[in-house]
């Protein structure tokens, strides 16, 4: 494992690649809505608002050479979801891909789950690099041969062809969610997965599409008594009976499926008491958890709310073990962020391969790396200006108030339209994928 961890300050990050259109006029369909590495890190999938999935593959030809930087190139592109219309409710169903999750590889083909607001699909991505030639009854282009002209028999043989990557939908899991799906998570048993919407969590078997089991239901009898919704859910990486779901109230509930069929009663409730000195009009909004992720070890989990990242030890429910401020300078700007709707942005977070560093996005195309062992943090920027090959990224600093130092940027100059909501970290190497509005930046560790 080549430097899978290392402190944030030990590692220097360099620009590697940028994917997507250069022009500033962003087409809405091109807005990236999810980014995910597969289990080996060889494949990197992105989903966008137009319902497309683009998969990049790491170029492994020169991987053995330490000097070489592995590049990601387009491997497959397909239309995963189309816009639909619910006639009963007179509602349009967006084709935007909310989440992509890869299945662990079992054979030559790759499988991933992609979901929009209502429907989950299992896609098979397979390679074809040879094709049969020499059929007796049909020509190479498929036309039937006139049987009267056939005088000899031959055995068709496989001949090499240009690599073709095919994506085919193998399963469609539909009609199980009344509300908008926010998460999917594959179980460690490789047979089941969960999908969560605002009020319910459903358990599916990968082979069965016509039914799913509802395992969590927080819908109140009277909707007017609704006080919280589910914002994210994930299976434990090793314990196939355990999953967690986060709420808009800032709580995380851990459930054990062995306890009962319906997991409405949690086995653990993770909640930190609110700091009364920070109370404001917007306390409820900023405490809503936008993402929850287990560490690779399964010992910790990380939650992201509007201003901070918290790391929880699964054995301690009353408070997180670590809290990192992502952009505390925004606390005094909450009113403006409410006005321009930015306060509703849902940032994701991710762990590095050995759980020593966590990463999350911010505004102005900044993203933050938070190193856990030495409690150090760094702010980097994904920008076209710092996009020269192997250019080392310079740490950025935001000036909260008072005199602005050289190289610092003031809070008021931040571009709140440039937000990094989705980031992903290679499972083994120091390679990260950071999605700006419509571009995907790939950064790698500087190799000396």
């Amino acid at each position: 494992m080549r430097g899978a961890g290392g402190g944030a300050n030990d590692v220097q990050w360099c620009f590697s690649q940028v994917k997507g259109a250069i022009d500033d006029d962003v087409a809405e369909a091109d807005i990236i809505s999810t980014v995910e590495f597969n289990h080996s890190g060889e494949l990197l999938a992105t989903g966008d608002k137009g319902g497309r999935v683009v998969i990049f593959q790491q170029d492994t030809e020169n991987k053995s050479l330490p000097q070489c930087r592995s590049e990601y190139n387009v491997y497959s592109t397909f239309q995963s979801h189309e816009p639909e219309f619910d006639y009963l409710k007179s509602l349009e169903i967006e084709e935007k891909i909310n989440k992509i999750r890869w299945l662990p590889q079992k054979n030559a083909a790759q499988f991933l789950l992609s979901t929009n607001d209502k429907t989950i699909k299992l896609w098979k991505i397979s390679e074809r690099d040879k094709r049969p030639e020499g059929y007796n009854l049909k020509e190479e282009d498929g036309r039937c041969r006139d049987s009267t002209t056939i005088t000899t028999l031959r055995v068709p043989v496989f001949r090499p062809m240009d690599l073709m990557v095919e994506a085919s939908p193998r399963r469609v899991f539909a009609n199980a969610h009344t509300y908008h799906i926010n998460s999917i998570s594959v179980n460690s048993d490789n047979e089941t997965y969960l999908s969560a919407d605002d009020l319910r969590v459903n358990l599916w078997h990968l082979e069965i599409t016509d039914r799913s089991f509802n395992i969590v239901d927080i819908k109140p009898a009277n909707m007017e008594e609704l006080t919280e919704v589910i914002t994210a859910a994930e299976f434990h990486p090793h314990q196939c009976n355990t999953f967690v779901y986060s709420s808009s109230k800032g709580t995380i509930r851990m459930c054990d499926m062995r306890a009962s069929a319906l997991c409405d009663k949690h086995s653990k409730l993770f909640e930190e008491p609110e700091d009364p000195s920070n109370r404001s009009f917007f306390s409820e909004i900023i405490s809503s958890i936008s993402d929850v992720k287990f560490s690779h070890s399964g010992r910790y989990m990380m939650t992201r709310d509007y201003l901070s990242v918290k790391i929880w030890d699964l054995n301690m429910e009353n408070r997180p073990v670590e809290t990192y401020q992502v952009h505390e300078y925004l606390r005094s700007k909450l009113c403006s962020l409410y006005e321009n709707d930015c306060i509703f942005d849902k940032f994701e977070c991710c762990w590095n391969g050995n759980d020593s560093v966590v990463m999350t996005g911010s505004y102005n195309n900044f993203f933050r790396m938070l190193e856990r062992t030495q409690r150090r943090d760094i702010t980097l920027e994904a920008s076209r200006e710092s996009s020269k090959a192997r250019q080392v990224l310079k740490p950025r600093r935001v000036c909260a108030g008072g005199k602005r130092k050289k190289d610092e940027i003031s809070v008021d100059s931040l571009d709140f339209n440039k937000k990094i909501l989705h980031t992903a970290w290679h499972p083994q190497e120091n390679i990260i994928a950071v999605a700006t509005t419509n571009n995907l930046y790939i950064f790698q560790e500087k190799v000396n």
Partner: protein
Amino acid sequence: MDISGQAKRIMVQALSKMYSSRTQRGGLRLHRSLLLTLVMKSARDIYHSARLVSEKEEQCARLVSTTKDLTQKEESIDTTSTEVSGIPVALCALATRSSEGVQRSKNESDPTVQNARETRVDKENCSPPRPDRHSRKRRGKTATEPDFLPCKKAKMDSGEVRRILHDATLRSNSGNCGREMDTLSTTHMLRTVVTC
């Protein structure tokens, strides 16, 4: 911007965001609607508390000037000297426009605690009949219209909302008139405003 002004602005924005989310692609987002409702509720509570404080201060000033004129009338209406609600009720009748407020203040025993709660209680009880009470549509969180808005209005401009908010506030505040004028209650009200 003062607290009540900020609260009002937040409420108005919450309303416009909720209305605009109806036309959003993909339908109403439950999470967003819930958060907006929560923001609006806390802004509304703070707005009413802040208005209460300013109303009380105004009435304090008014009552001080009229107390001298009303001394004779007080003596005739006053039942017992220990009755807390006696004097303020009488003054209320003279100082307020609404009679329902007087009735409510008579029933309350602890004005300091009740004031904040009462405002909210007033709002709910005073609200006009729900515009969609005969509707067959399910009244979920997302379909509920704020009760002080006229129904079936596609667009609300902030001026209209402000006017309605202003009227609603006056109606509900009338019940708290002339409640305890002592420093304790005033301090409590101020504290309420500041911490929120």
